């Protein structure tokens, strides 16, 4: 394909993604372009072939987080083992998060907001069938959402869906969600891995026990805590996908065992690679280490409602008194990205890098301390290894850094057990591990708005909270961008969160596996590696 044809193709792909043209239309245009560029294709083929996905192969994924408690119930699915297998391979959602972090239709062909993002209409692709041959109906979608809603639900997605008022079908392939208040990010929300579409039962409810979905792979065998084996779904609704004939998710909890299995070719992928063994991996040309920027970040959180952290200058002094580069180098062995006191990851939509970037600066720390009317400061910092991996080491380094600015940090070693009950939200200065949320609204509403249940910094900024409500129902993306930019700046300047670092998903991928850009909103290429990757 010639360069201009390629660019044009890219343009139409972009249009399709934005919903400007339908997927069908896109495929038509792509075919036309391919015919025009036909001569070029064969000429160009030899170089591009390695990148072309091809059919076949048996891929085995060594996962670190399986449990004997795992079930097929979409209300649970606590870790990437079941998320990637059941949400990402067995089932589909209405939408999915593309590798670049944008939102695209999965079962949905298109989706449109109306009424100030209060009403969302999803048009569903035609002719989709479940693995048992049954056609997908709107009732299946309705029941799949209801499974997580209502008083009796024990689903982890219950609070997420509390904003839904009604779900009503509109004809055979359209479903309408009426929300209690406008939510411009609703398409992101339905991409949550719990909200997989599963066949409805007669008389209500969903039939999750049978392990049937519309996904790229059909379930062969599920042994909790051991393995999930799956076969290619020949009737899958996406062209050519999936590429593998068979896949298996293998539970390997021990980091050394996982690495051994990878090195001896027992598995083609391993999750959660031990950073200490990265050097060893990289020496082997048949194996590669993939670092995918994730949303996960580690913080030291200050309670902005109590002294001394209620003084913004004290907060700023502490933000300047930590040498994040030093911590990234020594604690995370360089395998992390230093934070800038905003919890918004660089891969998220509307991310900005607030200025000034907080660097270790003793003079500035002292100046802010003086502005607060202090010459020295004594604070207690509560940490445990449970706070985040490496929290204690990071705290000890922070103590050394801050001492030079006249800030005495007394490290309080808390018990790992009950850390989230007794320390999180309770102690005035504590370490915290955050898995992040795909959108600004979702992230801020759960952890930084005035009434957020995880408002660990007890931060109540009026302007921030106003903007949060405004941006939630704003459908003009340019306007939202300025609103979220301002919110990130406020959080950076005034908030009580001290972001130490963002970590990468560090995974091992065999050279036998081919893949495009890898998404990091969720682990395992946004949980869709089984349908996006192939054997070279």
């Amino acid at each position: 394909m010639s360069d201009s044809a390629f660019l044009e193709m890219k343009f139409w792909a972009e249009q399709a993604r934005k919903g400007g043209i339908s997927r069908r239309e896109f495929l038509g245009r792509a075919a036309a372009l391919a015919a025009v560029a036909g001569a070029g294709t064969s000429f160009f083929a030899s170089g591009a072939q390695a990148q072309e996905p091809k059919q076949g192969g048996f891929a085995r994924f060594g996962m670190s987080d399986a449990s004997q408690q795992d079930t097929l119930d979409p209300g649970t699915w606590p870790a990437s083992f079941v998320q990637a297998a059941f949400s990402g391979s067995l089932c589909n959602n209405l939408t999915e998060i593309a590798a670049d972090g944008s939102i695209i239709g999965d079962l949905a062909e298109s989706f449109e907001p109306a009424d100030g993002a209060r009403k969302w209409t999803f048009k569903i692709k035609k002719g989709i069938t479940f693995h048992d041959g049954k056609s997908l109906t709107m009732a299946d979608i309705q029941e799949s959402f209801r499974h997580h809603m209502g008083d009796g639900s024990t689903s982890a997605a219950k609070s997420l869906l509390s904003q839904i008022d009604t779900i009503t079908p509109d004809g055979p392939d359209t479903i309408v969600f009426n929300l209690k208040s406008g939510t411009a990010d609703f398409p992101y929300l339905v991409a949550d891995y719990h909200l997989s579409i599963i066949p409805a039962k007669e008389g209500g409810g969903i039939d999750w026990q049978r392990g049937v979905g519309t996904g790229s792979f059909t379930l062969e065998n599920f042994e909790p805590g051991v393995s999930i084996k799956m076969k290619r779904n020949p009737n899958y609704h996406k062209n050519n996908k999936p590429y593998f004939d068979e896949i298996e998710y293998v539970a390997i909890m021990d980091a050394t065992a996982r690495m051994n299995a990878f090195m001896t070719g027992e598995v083609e992928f391993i999750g959660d690679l031990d950073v200490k063994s990265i050097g060893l991996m990289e020496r082997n040309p048949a194996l590669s280490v993939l670092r995918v920027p994730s949303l996960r970040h580690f913080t030291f959180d200050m309670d902005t409602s109590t002294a001394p952290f209620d003084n913004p200058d004290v907060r700023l002094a502490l933000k300047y008194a930590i040498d994040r580069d030093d911590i990234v180098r020594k604690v995370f062995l360089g395998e992390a990205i230093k934070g800038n006191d905003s919890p918004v990851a660089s891969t998220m939509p509307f991310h900005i890098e607030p200025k000034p970037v907080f660097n270790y600066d003793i003079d500035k720390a002292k100046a802010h301390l003086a502005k607060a009317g202090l010459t020295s400061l004594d604070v207690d910092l509560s940490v445990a290894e449970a706070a985040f991996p490496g929290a204690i080491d990071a705290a000890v380094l922070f103590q050394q850094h801050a001492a030079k600015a006249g800030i005495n940090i007394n490290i309080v070693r808390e018990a790992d057990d009950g850390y989230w009950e007794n320390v999180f939200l309770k102690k005035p200065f504590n370490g915290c591990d955050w898995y992040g949320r795909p959108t600004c609204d979702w992230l801020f509403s759960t952890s930084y708005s005035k009434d957020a249940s995880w408002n660990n910094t007890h931060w109540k900024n009026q302007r921030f909270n106003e903007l949060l409500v405004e941006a939630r129902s704003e459908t003009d993306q340019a306007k939202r961008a300025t609103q979220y930019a301002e919110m990130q700046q406020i959080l950076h300047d005034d908030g009580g969160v001290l972001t130490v670092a963002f970590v990468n998903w560090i995974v091992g991928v065999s050279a036998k596996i081919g893949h495009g850009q890898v998404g990091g909103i969720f682990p395992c290429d946004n949980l869709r590696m089984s349908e996006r990757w192939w054997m070279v």
Partner: protein
Amino acid sequence: MGLVSNPIAKMILQRIGLGLLSLVIVSLVIFLAVNLLPGSFASAVLGRSATPDAVAAFQHQLGLDRPMVDRYFTWLSSALQGDFGNSFSKRPVGTIIGPRLLSTLRLAGITAAIAVPLAILLGIVCARYRNRLPDRFLSAVTLAAISVPEFFIAYVLMLFLATRLHIFPSLSSIRSSMHFDEQLYRMALPIMTLLFVVLAHMMRNTRAAILNVMSRPFIEMAQLKGEPEMRVIMRHALPNAIGSIASVVAINLAYLIAGVVVVEVVFVYPGIGQTMVDAVRNRDVPVIQACALIFSTAYILLNLLADIISIVSNPRLLHPR
């Protein structure tokens, strides 16, 4: 049949009674110990969303707000009927533990079937050629094997046989869907590791037990009669040493069932040790209690069996004057 005379039957019944009593005491210890664990299932599951209300609701739902004595007797009476109740994750404990226990028993069974005869045979060889080359060689090798931790043996075997030579797979995560021969092939490295661990202990004790008997006057008598050395060992010394050999074998068999969690983790073998570790991490009390009870039952039962064997095999008890 005058073989099982009254005193032996009485003694065996006594042992069984004592075994049951120790099981009840152990169950009490297990229950108390598990209740002393800090944290709770509710907080382990709910993580940071554990509000006091949610935790209380969880505790109530699981019946953890009832008095301890009450809970103990409910648990004990249903456990005695073979019903371990439901795990806190709402699946029956039986379906969680059952398959794992089976694969542990399979690993232990195969290992024992190789290790026990081999250990006794080598022990006899050592006793026969005591302080000579075969004895010194075997003693040195087994002493070395016994003094390194099992995970070290596991990793050394894995390094050479899996990573370097590619003879055996490094991953032993067997699935029930696999054929038996493939399962066996995947179990090769854990079996070898466990062989190294238990073989040494049993062999050295067999040797010691036989040599202990060999210093007794009736052996000297047999030797003076001019019996060949091998016959002296097999006919006169071994029967008298069976009691102490049996108790060492029992301890090692119990270890194979209850103590192999490290080997399970290294080779990713889906055994019951891993289940218990998971359950402790999740504070899934019914599963922890069931595992602990199964482990202690294995120890008590096997020791009981060893006791009975040593009583029954004792010539003086078998042939009373």
